[in-house]
């Protein structure tokens, strides 16, 4: 049967399971399975929920909705709730199941419609479809006489006896004798209530599953609930309301959504969880009175409204305020979101800055940086002056009396990024050395428009040296003109700034250079999104063709990976480069079902994210080549930080998960070095060493070394060394 379903709808099981875990904002089979079990604490409720989910997933699939979303459970979880709601309300009967099927269909249609409406505003539809569906159906079924109101849930002991015999009754009774405080009992019941299981057992199971699945979610559920509890206590509201109506879950769901899922967990998100509690309370109490007129429960209305409003407000922020930060890449687990965000905000500013390069060729010296001592002040403080110096630090040869004596004079100036040339001044005389032209202080200048509100300006160019015209579209690295000595320039140099308006005298804006090499003698360091400092020698990364083609992974490529362990054991894996519909490219290991996502731009290869088996070879491949500049620089040490999600669930990691929103004491450091390069032109051989060291506070407790060999323009060997253990992988393109 399952096989047959699978042939029609291959990811059927996944889509059903995800519908369960999505209630807690997760995509996790373990959590889902536990939740599925919990719904069956009341058998007929469980059946109804499962049926509704299956029907919805199938229908969605047959209609031809986005299969990615169906598999993720996006269309199923609202139906699941509707199913559970109906299942507990009515006695099982054929009529009920027929109505259930149409309720599922209705929920699906509602889900798609509400999704379409909310999508425009960039906010999730949460459980709105469930609310509309269950209310309408509840009202409608009052007219249906064939349905009998269920009494289950009222006589719990009877139900338990029917379901699990006397054993379950004993457990239930034992649970009731536990010395649990009233608040804890309400907490557990509230958790159970999310799945219409109004009992403490369900709540305890869910709480444990939640704890195993995500420490932060669990912590948030407590914070959400208890801040409500204390608020009720403080305000003198009826705590029984929390207990009787089981609406406590509104606080729990809001806490998880706002504290860790839709927002990156941090002390700010936690603070907001506490601050939003009274709002939910107001909504619950207020809406309950209105809904009482038609005798409808409020369910999760308050949660939905508060979350949507708050998220909407955050989306309207115009300040670059990242506190709290909205989750930009959803990994369906607060810890993962946090570790990924922490890591990527250190690694990338992609969301924020366009990638701009050093606007010259070769190595130049910064003679004046941001907030410089001469002219980079006030509105013009975010600018760079560049010159060329020799090893002795001189910027000119011979006497230095002629502009031609200066190393930088008449050297090419290139476009820092792609854009349209919007302004050219090209006819101002170069000054004699020591003289300045105050009248046309910017001298010969080229301004390029890169984006709306983002321009770059290059000034003091040589007279008549412009190679472009106004309106020309240039790409990054195109030669624009030559360095000169025009304008307020006593010695030849290049002035480079980014600005938000297209005028010659526009004020500057802070804008880091995306990637550049900083040289100290023959020692190079690689900097990303940084502002070069005064006297720093900087250059753009010059790509190495062999490295570049070795890291050119194209979707569809298949690799045979032969692994030899130190005990002589050998086995083979198969990897494939795949792309998803969002153009994310990743390595996929068929045997371990693991994915390692990567990007490749600006001559740098980055692995961005890994999901799957942390013992797999692909995982080691991911951390070994976490960041590789595609230019060969021998004396350069490339460093980076790995996200903590690479760590396995050991006690210290679990502790780290709990405190992660506030404090990180575990660190994973990455470094890479180029060792040797030979034969540049055809059968390249490049040797790379990289290393991952795991640190507790500052002490290293584990290191893994990697040797990577690139032969013939492709990565051929990966050797992993940890202590005496050595594992080798030979990678071959099929």
């Amino acid at each position, binding site marked *: 049967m399952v096989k047959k379903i699978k042939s029609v709808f291959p990811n059927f099981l996944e889509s059903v399971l995800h519908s369960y875990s999505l209630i807690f904002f997760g995509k996790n089979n373990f959590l889902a399975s536990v939740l599925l079990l919990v719904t069956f604490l009341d058998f007929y409720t469980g059946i109804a929920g499962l049926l509704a989910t299956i029907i919805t997933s199938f229908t969605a699939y047959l209609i031809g909705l986005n299969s990615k979303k169906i598999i993720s459970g996006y269309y199923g979880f609202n139906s699941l709730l509707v199913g559970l709601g109906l299942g507990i309300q009515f006695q099982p009967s054929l009529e009920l199941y027929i109505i259930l099927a149409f309720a599922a269909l209705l929920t699906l249609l509602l889900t798609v419609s509400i999704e379409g409406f909310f999508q425009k505003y960039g906010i999730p539809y949460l459980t709105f479809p469930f609310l509309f569906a269950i209310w309408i159906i509840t009202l409608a079924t009052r007219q249906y006489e064939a349905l009998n109101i269920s009494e289950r849930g009222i006589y719990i002991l009877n139900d338990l006896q029917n379901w699990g015999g006397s054993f379950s009754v004993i457990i239930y009774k034992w649970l009731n004798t536990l010395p649990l405080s009233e608040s804890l009992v309400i907490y557990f019941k509230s958790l159970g209530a999310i799945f219409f299981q109004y009992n403490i057992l369900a709540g305890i199971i869910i709480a444990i599953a939640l704890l195993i699945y995500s420490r932060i979610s669990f912590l948030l559920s407590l914070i959400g609930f208890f801040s409500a509890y204390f608020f009720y206590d403080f305000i003198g509201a009826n705590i029984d309301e929390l207990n009787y109506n089981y609406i406590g879950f509104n606080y729990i769901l809001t806490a998880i959504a706002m504290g860790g899922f839709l927002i990156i967990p941090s002390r700010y998100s936690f603070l907001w969880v506490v601050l939003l509690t009274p709002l939910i309370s107001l909504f619950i109490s207020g809406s309950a009175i209105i809904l009482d007129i038609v005798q409808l429960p409020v369910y999760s209305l308050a949660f939905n409204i508060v979350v949507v409003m708050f998220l909407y407000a955050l989306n309207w922020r115009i300040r670059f305020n990242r506190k709290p930060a909205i989750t930009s890449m959803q990994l369906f687990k607060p810890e993962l979101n946090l570790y990924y965000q922490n890591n990527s905000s250190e690694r990338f500013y992609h969301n924020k800055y366009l990638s701009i390069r050093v606007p010259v060729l070769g190595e130049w010296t910064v003679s004046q940086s941001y907030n410089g001592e001469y002219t980079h002040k006030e509105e013009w403080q975010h600018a760079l002056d560049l010159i060329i110096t020799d090893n002795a630090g001189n910027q000119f040869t011979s006497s230095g009396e002629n502009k031609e004596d200066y190393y930088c004079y008449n050297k090419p100036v290139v476009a820092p990024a792609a854009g349209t040339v919007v302004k050219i001044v090209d006819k101002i005389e170069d000054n004699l050395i020591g003289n300045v032209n105050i009248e046309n202080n910017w001298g010969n200048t080229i301004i390029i428009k890169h984006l709306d509100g983002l321009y770059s300006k290059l000034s003091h160019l040589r007279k008549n040296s412009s190679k472009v015209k106004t309106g020309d579209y240039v790409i990054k690295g195109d030669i624009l003109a030559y360095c000169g000595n025009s304008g307020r320039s006593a010695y030849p140099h290049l002035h480079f700034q980014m600005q938000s308006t297209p005028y010659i005298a526009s004020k500057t804006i802070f804008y880091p250079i995306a990637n550049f090499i900083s040289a100290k003698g023959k020692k190079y360091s690689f900097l990303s999104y940084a502002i070069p400092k005064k006297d720093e020698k900087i250059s753009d990364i010059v790509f190495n063709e062999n490295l570049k083609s070795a890291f050119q992974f194209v979707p569809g490529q298949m690799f045979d990976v032969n692994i030899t362990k130190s005990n002589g054991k050998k086995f083979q894996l198969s990897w494939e480069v795949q792309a998803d519909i969002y153009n994310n490219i990743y390595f996929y290991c068929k045997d371990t079902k693991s994915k390692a996502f990567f990007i490749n731009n600006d001559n740098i290869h980055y692995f961005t994210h890994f999901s799957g088996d942390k013992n797999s070879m692909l995982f080691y491949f991911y951390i070994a080549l976490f960041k590789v500049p595609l230019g060969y620089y021998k004396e350069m040490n490339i460093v980076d930080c790995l996200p903590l999600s690479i760590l396995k669930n050991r006690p210290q990691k679990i502790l780290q998960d709990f405190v992660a929103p506030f404090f990180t004491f575990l660190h994973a450091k990455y470094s890479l070095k180029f060792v040797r390069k*030979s034969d540049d032109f*055809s059968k390249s051989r490049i040797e790379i060493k990289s290393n991952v060291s795991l640190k507790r506070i500052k002490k290293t407790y584990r290191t893994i070394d990697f040797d990577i060999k690139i032969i013939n323009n492709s990565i051929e060997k990966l050797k992993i060394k940890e202590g005496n253990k050595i594992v080798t992988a030979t990678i071959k393109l099929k």
Partner: protein
Amino acid sequence: MEKKKYERPIIKQLVTGVPGKFGRPEKPNIMTHIDGVSVKSLLNEYGSPLFVMSEKKMREKYQTAKQAFTTRYPKVQMAWSYKTNYLDAVCSIYHQEGSWAEVVSGFEYDKAIELGVEGSKIIFNGPTKSEADLIKAITNESLIHIDNIDELYLILKITEKINIRPKVAIRVNMDTGIYPMWDRFGFNYENGMAWEALNKIMHSGKLDLIGLHTHIGTFMLAPNAYKIAAQKLSDLALGLKKKFSHNIKYIDMGGGFASTNSLKGIYMPGVDTSPSIDDFAEAITSALLSAHYSTEELPVLILETGRALIDEAGYLLGTVLANKRLISGQRATIADIGVNILFTSFWYDHKISVAQEMTDFTEPTALFGPLCMNIDVIRENVELPLLNIGDNFVVHYAGAYNMTQWMQFITMRPKVVLIDEQGRTHIIRENESLETIKQLEKVPEYLSKFEL
């Protein structure tokens, strides 16, 4: 009070009043120290004559040249021209700086390999490559620059025997508007020989054609010629792209950049007439950058400049042996430096400084070497102070070609000393002795005895 140095009396026209068109009469050049090391102490320690190399100057020259190119063009690779100076220590300095090796014979090739240069970083140029040399170079994955069609056929023949694809480039000669045109090396561009060779290589399918090479001349004073050469090579490269969809990985512009030495027959001194390395860099890179390569496929620019990097770093120190007056009335000074060790004196009017304090009086002098040969003339006519026997002097710009073209003739070759960046001296080549010479000789038994 120290005893004043004796200088012989001379009779000289007194020049007074305003300076002439060449300015005031020049004072004699005095150079008592090289990189802080006194010339006298060097000669005392290592004997006279003596070659002295300045490591500081070599590195400085290299870095300036490299910077001149890298600030104009993204991908630049230097290759040290072994024939310019292949002393191991000298080559090592350039290799430390990142230079590859450019060799023109099996001997130079072996020397580079022996020194530790990886095969794939050796460029094998020149018209003399034996089959054995080629097999070695192919096996080592070196870059072979094919000089003529027979060599191409030989390489193709070798590929039938060994199972390694040779990495080749062709050397191209062309009209760049200068005279003489070096049409004896490589394949001509204008008459279609270059294309013929490229077609043969591409159609053979057995060779990896990865570069194009030219070397338009030596001691070039016209940067524009390089511009024309770079344009013509780019034409070939882009033509290959069009015809065979084949990307050329590098363009080798050779060397031949002038140093600041003064060529014979040129009126003004070299410092004033020679173009700077920047002029050459500008000519070459501007031609390549405007040649319509796509940014991703911009070829690596290889430069084999030798002389311009080392000429100024080499000095030859000598001692006066005798003075005499020729029948023309001209003074002549005989020194211990002969043309056998200063081969370049046939090409250049080497600048000469004296190595001790002297008065400002100078006399037009012929500077002869110690050889019993009429051609042994270091300078035919040079304004020198009034040197006495035993006085020392410095010949400048002697770093290029002398330590490779010198010969053991009548006298023996002297030591070569390197002054490192900290001012320490190191012998980098011992002087020859009777033993060195006799070592190679063999006397048949019946000639071993004679009586006079």
